[in-house]
């Protein structure tokens, strides 16, 4: 009934929009060939390989670091596994100067932009070189030079911030936009509603990229919302929207490229829903066997986005078995070596406890810090990390 041309009706007819079907945009079949009717996207070899290398690197990093966590070398880890195309395909469609405000499962964006394995490891081990100064849990990366906002654990808080950031970009007129990533679970937060509505009203160049991976920890999407995904919410804000096969690297790239030009050239914010699946556990603390079946996982394992891209690349003769082997070996080695190096580095200096709370340490906090230092001097054995740092500092001097 809501598609009637009439302005007025004389019977109380209700609709819940169930009659709308939001189609999924796809280009690439699982065998690496294009769908019939799909136009080959413009993507040169260089770009394609940059993307593919980022996907492989992300996958290997995830595998190795989960293993490291299992070995007790790391306290915590979260994998992007299964969602590499959704994340990297979209980031690759942006300008590297665009701002990324991610949730936590988007390490692929960082890899793509050139965050080094060293930089990852320093954060994961919270050593003295961690940009975050060892203050946040593993996977809370950030990089100002790569325009990647430091991850914050409270879910969805970055979504209205992305609207604000993009408003600032629009005011500055620098032709940049902001993309914010979030899960279909986080989209239930009030901040999501605020962010999309404000973006639509103020015509802000922001892309809202919902990774619908089926689960929020143990909660399946069906207990998260009654609707057909997150996409139909765009109707409520009158915002451009598209649903994309999140395991299809070409479709993700095309859709995001188009979204970016809506955002930047027309000040139209866009909601992209990337349909995918969280192949791994929620995090290293989680065990999905309590809430979903192996069969379900197997179905999605068949849809691996990396394999799909590899088959496409091979079809184009841009990639070979040997290339694959070499990349995998190199990356595995680099990850392991870098890990060892990072793990050995001392923790951040003691004064990182009190710096950056404000631009300057206020007097009362400075006093607390003096007391702490005196206390540690009295009990050096009780504070091995501070002691370690002091030792290391001596060694290096």
């Amino acid at each position, binding site marked *: 009934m809501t598609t009637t041309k009439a302005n007025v009706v004389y019977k109380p007819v209700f609709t819940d929009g169930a009659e709308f079907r939001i189609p999924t945009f796809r280009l690439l079949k699982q065998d690496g060939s294009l769908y019939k009717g799909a136009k080959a996207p413009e993507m040169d070899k260089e770009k394609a390989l940059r993307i593919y290398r980022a996907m492989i690197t992300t996958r290997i990093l995830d595998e190795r670091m989960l293993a490291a966590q299992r070995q007790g070398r790391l306290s915590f880890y979260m994998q992007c596994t299964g969602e590499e195309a959704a994340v990297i395909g979209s980031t690759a469609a942006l300008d590297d100067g665009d701002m990324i405000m991610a949730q936590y499962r988007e390490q692929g964006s960082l890899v793509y932009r050139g965050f080094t394995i060293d930089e990852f490891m320093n954060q994961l081990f919270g050593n003295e070189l961690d940009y975050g100064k060892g203050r946040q849990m593993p996977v809370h990366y950030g990089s100002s030079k790569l325009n990647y906002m430091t991850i*914050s654990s409270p879910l969805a808080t970055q979504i209205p911030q992305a609207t604000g950031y993009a408003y600032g970009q629009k005011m500055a007129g620098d032709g940049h936009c902001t993309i914010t990533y979030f899960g279909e679970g986080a989209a239930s937060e009030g901040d999501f509603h605020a962010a999309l509505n404000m973006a639509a009203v103020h015509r802000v160049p922001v892309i809202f990229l919902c990774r619908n991976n089926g689960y929020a*920890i143990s909660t399946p999407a069906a207990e998260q919302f009654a609707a057909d995904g997150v996409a139909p919410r765009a109707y409520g804000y009158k915002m451009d929207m598209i649903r994309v096969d999140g395991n299809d690297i070409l479709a993700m790239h095309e859709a995001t490229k188009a979204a970016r030009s809506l955002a930047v050239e027309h000040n139209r914010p866009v909601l992209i829903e990337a349909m995918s699946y969280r192949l791994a556990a929620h995090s290293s603390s989680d065990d999905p066997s309590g809430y979903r079946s192996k069969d379900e996982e197997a179905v999605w394992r068949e849809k691996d986005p990396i394999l799909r891209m590899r088959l496409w690349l091979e079809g184009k003769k841009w990639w070979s078995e040997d290339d694959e082997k070499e990349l995998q070996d190199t990356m595995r080695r680099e990850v392991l070596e870098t890990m060892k190096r990072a793990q050995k580095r001392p923790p951040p200096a003691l004064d990182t406890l009190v710096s950056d709370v404000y631009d300057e340490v206020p007097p009362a*906090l400075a006093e607390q810090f003096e007391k702490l230092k005196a206390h540690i001097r009295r009990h050096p054995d009780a504070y091995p990390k501070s002691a370690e740092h002091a030792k290391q500092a001596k060694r290096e001097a």
Partner: protein
Amino acid sequence: MTQMNMLQAINNALDTAMAADERVLCFGEDVGVFGGVFRATSHLQEKYGKSRCFNTPLVEQGIIGFANGLAAQGSVPVAEIQFADYIFPAFDQIVNESAKYRYRSGNLFNVGGLTIRAPYGGGIAGGLYHSQSPEAYFAHTPGLKIVVPRNPHQAKGLLLGAIHDPNPTLFFEPKRLYRASVGDVPDEDYRLPLGEAEVLKEGTDVTVLGWGAQMDVIEQAVEMAEKDGISCEVIDLRTILPWDVETVANSVFKTGRLVVTHEAPLTGGFAGEIAATIQERCFLYLESPIARVTGMDTPFPLVLEKEHLPNHLKVFEAIRASVDF
């Protein structure tokens, strides 16, 4: 009596309450099939059905808004916030709504049935957002009760007390004790009183006061102090709001000294309220300044959390300083 860890005791309390009264409902993020990320609600959905124990969408303000409505209707909701660090989106529903429901309506309506459970505290390598102790943020809000248990026995009894208390109650669970703290827990339905501190150990030289996981820290510190010949009176505040001024003041009348400790930052922490009240109440009896041993005035760090936290050594030194003043 059964030996249980704190999680089991909490699970047992919920089970007890749900068995006794079908108006009791448990819900929150991942609380259903999965039994919560810490498993505090394990098996409750199996036992009581999906309509009484269920997952909610991921929206804390909605969880508490929903819970407020349920409580106003006469149900007895026990809502879980997955980590106390994530309770802030619900701050308005708690502070402006739950706390003021009865007062603003002249007692026509109330949400007394409401209990909000949340794991809190540090010491688990959780960094900024899996470590906070937000009790003081709520303690400025007349109309709320705030309870923190120190061990499995207390956890079951106080949680049942909170669920049956006719006022909205926040129940903060020291998550680093979830599995670490084990003890005998009665099998029956017993309810510990809210608003009453407990003197765990009598002493004459100094009163040492805390709550939750900090009671273990105090125990270690006091052991050290007693070796030095200092006689400590140890009090578990248990209820942060409204707090038991009488018990604390009576102790300080006797000892003349007070050390208060909590994990939350110093400034604006609840130790400040206690110190302010006790210095007024016991002014002529105080032999040394009331000492506060707390987290530092920073967000909660990760790698250096040991340095940040008010551990037994810091509490011990404060006891010493108080006695040596």
